[in-house]
């Protein structure tokens, strides 16, 4: 699903965010991306959605070399990749339904298709009947569910989550993790950057640890590490 070959990323200001990183993630995997702040997690994610280009190396996502994409192909590439952020990034002036429908409108689905699809996705993320609420009327966990619904409504093969539980209390965070796990079981590959030690330790998924832009650990059923 994802292949990084000797990827190095140096920002224009001289900061080396990733240093000769080689990683392979298979289809259907659930991968935690851990490491201290500034280890290169965000850059890793930005490379996957081609917000940034690597300075050196090759990146393949879903069998495509995403470095050679033209502008219009970048848009197409992103349609195959759902993304969830720590701060939800919902549109405050739109209802839950409209927020999710927005993702479909952008891809030119018809109203009929949108009306049919959105409620089923909302039901799947556990927001049945909350379509008419505005984001500020929801709890943090519910807002993140809306964001997840928006990310998966177009059926991406890869879901990237950048600290999705960072703003949530532990119980709520677990709800979100269950949801992500369900999505993973349905066949979507998930890459999740996180600082949540408990979650990583309990889930026993593959863990990729970065430090100073280098791969320091890659365990199949790993823990968070950094026990100190």
């Amino acid at each position, binding site marked *: 699903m994802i292949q990084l070959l000797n990827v190095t990323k140096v920002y224009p200001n001289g900061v080396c965010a990733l240093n000769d990183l080689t990683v392979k993630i298979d289809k259907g995997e659930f991968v935690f991306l851990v490491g201290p702040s500034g280890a290169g997690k965000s850059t890793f994610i930005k490379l996957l*959605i081609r*917000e940034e280009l690597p300075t050196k190396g090759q990146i393949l996502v879903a069998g495509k070399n995403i470095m050679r994409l033209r*502008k*219009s192909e970048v*848009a*197409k*590439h*992103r*349609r*195959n*990749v759902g*993304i969830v952020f720590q701060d939800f*990034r919902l*549109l405050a*002036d739109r209802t839950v339904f409209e927020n999710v429908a*927005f*993702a479909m*409108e*952008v*891809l*030119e689905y*018809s*109203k009929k298709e949108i009306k049919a699809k959105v409620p089923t996705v909302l039901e799947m993320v556990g927001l049945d009947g909350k379509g008419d609420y505005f984001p500020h009327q929801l709890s943090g966990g519910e807002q993140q569910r809306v964001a997840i619904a*928006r990310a998966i409504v*177009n059926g991406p093969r890869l879901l990237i989550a950048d600290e999705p539980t960072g703003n949530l209390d532990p119980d709520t965070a677990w709800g979100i993790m269950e949801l992500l796990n369900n999505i993973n079981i349905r066949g979507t590959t998930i890459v999740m950057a996180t600082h949540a030690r408990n979650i990583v330790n309990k889930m026993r998924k593959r863990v990729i640890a970065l430090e100073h832009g280098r791969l320091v650990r890659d365990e199949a059923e790993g823990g968070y590490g950094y026990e100190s």
Partner: protein
Amino acid sequence: MKVRTVGYFFKQAFKSMWRNGWMGVAAVTTVAITLLIVGIFTLLVFNADYIATDLESDVEIVAYMDVDASRNEVLQVGEQIKAIKGVAEVKLVTKEEGLETLNKRFGRNYDLLSSLGGVNPLPDLYRIKAESPEDVETVAKTLQQVAHVDKVDYGKEVVDKLFAVIRWVRFMGAGIVLLLALGAIFLVATTIRLTVFARRKEIQIMKYIGATDWFIRWPFFIEGMVLGFIGALVAGVVLYFTYDFVATNIRFNLTFIPLISDMTLVMKILGSLLVAGTLVGALGSLISVRRFLQV
């Protein structure tokens, strides 16, 4: 692109205008005021041109014949003059006519001829009008080469001065109009940037979801064009009625100033203003969205 997508673009554009109502009013006002000034200047330039042309067309060349040239020779010269390129009108004033004019000037019953001893000292002369003021000088020079022409006279200094003024008015007018148009584009860009800025989050999310740049641009593009068009319309309506009022008043009170009264020309200027307004709006919105598409 699907038809319903076009509908979506328009819906989004009008929604955004509704949501950012005051911003829209600001943009429309900006365009309206700027284009109003542009329009006023355009009309001034056109009218200055018109007045100048009116004055220019009064410039006359006078060609004096040799005093001893026979009437036949003079008539022949007349034909020659008519053949000169750039000559629009030729009028012969014979020495008898000239004398009569002089007589009239001296008094009703004055007999100038007898006091001159029975010999008319005046030459025959041709009054010539050039097709266009630019031709005056060349025509005058050509006339000097014609046989039996004694002296050619035209208001060289007046003509030259007039030209200088017209050139200056045209040049300054064009410069000012251009500067104002540029100013308008940037003002609209700034105003629309505010509405774009208010929606930068939305743009970012659209980019992450996989919307193409043009998909994101179109609603802003439409919004800009509509705002520009409305602004131009306001400017146009104000300009039309103001000009109509001013021109009518001047025509009645200051009759010696010739003004363009042909409203089709004014309508043409207004049409250009509408096109310009729409373009300014479109360009302004494109400039503002550009920066936010870099995700």
